[in-house]
């Protein structure tokens, strides 16, 4: 993903995923693992579902109430995670966390998620930008 996205493009990506989150639905089939996450300083109250087969995330979706940042960041995460191995997913989550905390990170793997690079400007919203990612992490890390 080119880091040369303009601010306008990044904003458009966030707005697109928050107004039309394609991964926001309950799973239609069987075999999903669910984690519930909520935050006490925001409205976020989400269920994250991952379907893992042969070491690979084959589907990811979520349902619940969320602010713009948690909605869009979780939706983007679901897009990016589908098809990745557990190892790849965990690495991506780790790099995303580094970006959140203004530490050096590998932008190659973050793709569209790079649009949240400025979250640290609004520190109170880091929790929102990471809620879905933390949920996925808690499912994947025990695999």
């Amino acid at each position: 993903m080119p880091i040369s996205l303009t601010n306008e493009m990044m904003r458009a990506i966030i707005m697109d995923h928050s107004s039309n989150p394609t991964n926001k639905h309950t799973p239609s089939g069987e075999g999903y693992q669910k984690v519930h996450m909520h935050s006490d300083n925001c409205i976020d109250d989400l269920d994250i579902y991952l379907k893992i087969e042969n070491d690979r995330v084959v589907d990811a979706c979520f349902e619940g109430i969320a602010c713009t940042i948690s909605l869009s960041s979780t939706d983007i995460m679901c897009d990016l995670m589908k098809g990745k191995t557990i190892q790849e997913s965990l690495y991506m989550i780790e790099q995303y966390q580094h970006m959140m905390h203004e530490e050096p990170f590998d932008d190659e793997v973050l793709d569209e998620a790079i649009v949240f690079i400025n979250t640290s400007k609004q520190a109170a919203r880091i929790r929102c930008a990471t809620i879905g990612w933390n949920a996925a992490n808690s499912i994947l890390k025990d695999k």
Partner: protein
Amino acid sequence: MYDIKKVRLDFPMLQNKTMQGKPLVFLDNASTTFKPRQVIEAMDKYYLEMNSNSHRGDYDLCYNMDVEVAKARETIAKFINSDVNEVVFTSGDTEAINLVAYGYALEYLKKGDQILISETEHASNVLPWYRICDLTGAKVCFVKLDDKRITVEGVRNAFKDNKSIKLVALAHVGNVLGYEINAKEIASICHKNGALFLLDGAQSVPHMAVDFKDLDVDFLTFSAHKMCGPTGIGCLVGKYVLLQKMATFHTGGGMNVKFNNKQEVIPLDAPAKFEAGTLNLSAIIGFKAAIEYLTNLGMENIHKHDQELFEYAISKLEGYDNIIIYNKDSNSGIIAFNIKGVFAQDEATLLNSKGIAVRSGQHCAKMIDPVIGEPATVRMSTYLYTSKEEIDIFIDNLINGGDILDAYFFN
């Protein structure tokens, strides 16, 4: 004459502070308030000149500390018009409510009894009662609201329908919508029906004159930090006969006359029997200084100042159809609102990026969403040092603040 410019000079937090590179506009005073120099200096004085425990030594420093604590208690008693020994120091409003829950309700309520509260209460005036109900088999019931408000009629009807109510616990001024209840009338209804009345004064005592004896409530609770005082201190004011009847809650040093190896304890009289362990002494000194500060300004003036700012803000917001205000008919220093189509948290973050501190969410009143009809609101709340200029900045940013994502992509 209330001289706001002069008042503001007393507060270090109001001197050239910035947030997100913008002048700080603090409009989250229902959560906590800034402290004037007078309070900070009084607390420093404890550590710099008076450092000692209270009632534990035979030397002058310790004696003087006892005198200071007694003076603080007198100052508080005078401020809310109670007797001195009716004032119990607690860590804050929350602990004060818990003290009544565990000291009174746990002791005297039983299965079949009911505790009347409302769906607009703060968690601190809900969860202690839930816990007591778990322990005793009593039940919590809710007063029927009249379009978001608790009315005298609502309380009266609750007693008509329900003969088992033994305790009523309500906020004097709600922390989300800022509505004031008619505490005196409600106290009288409670007493006619054989119930006790706890008034949660967290949002009223800091903003208006509250007279414990005149209201004739049984318990009144509040926190110093919401009234220019320090965190970690507050009080329960209770009718003395009830305090004496109550069981102790925290036990330990400083609350007993004697005890022996047969597990017999003789507690001190109230209020000392509730004040186990070393008290938060610097905070008690600061609490006293805060009350002196408020008294000097005059509670009538402080109340009027809040009301004027409220009316000023509401009138300026008139005509902006995309700003939904949920409590236009209130008149305390709290405005609860949303911008159409914008999540409350997103709006609060945008305001943060402009240097404006407000709170979003349910403000600890987690049963209020069906009452308002929204999962979350933005709350702005003023205090005695809030200026019209700050209201102007706030409103200008509500109206012309731009897109919520500006919070991340500008600056």
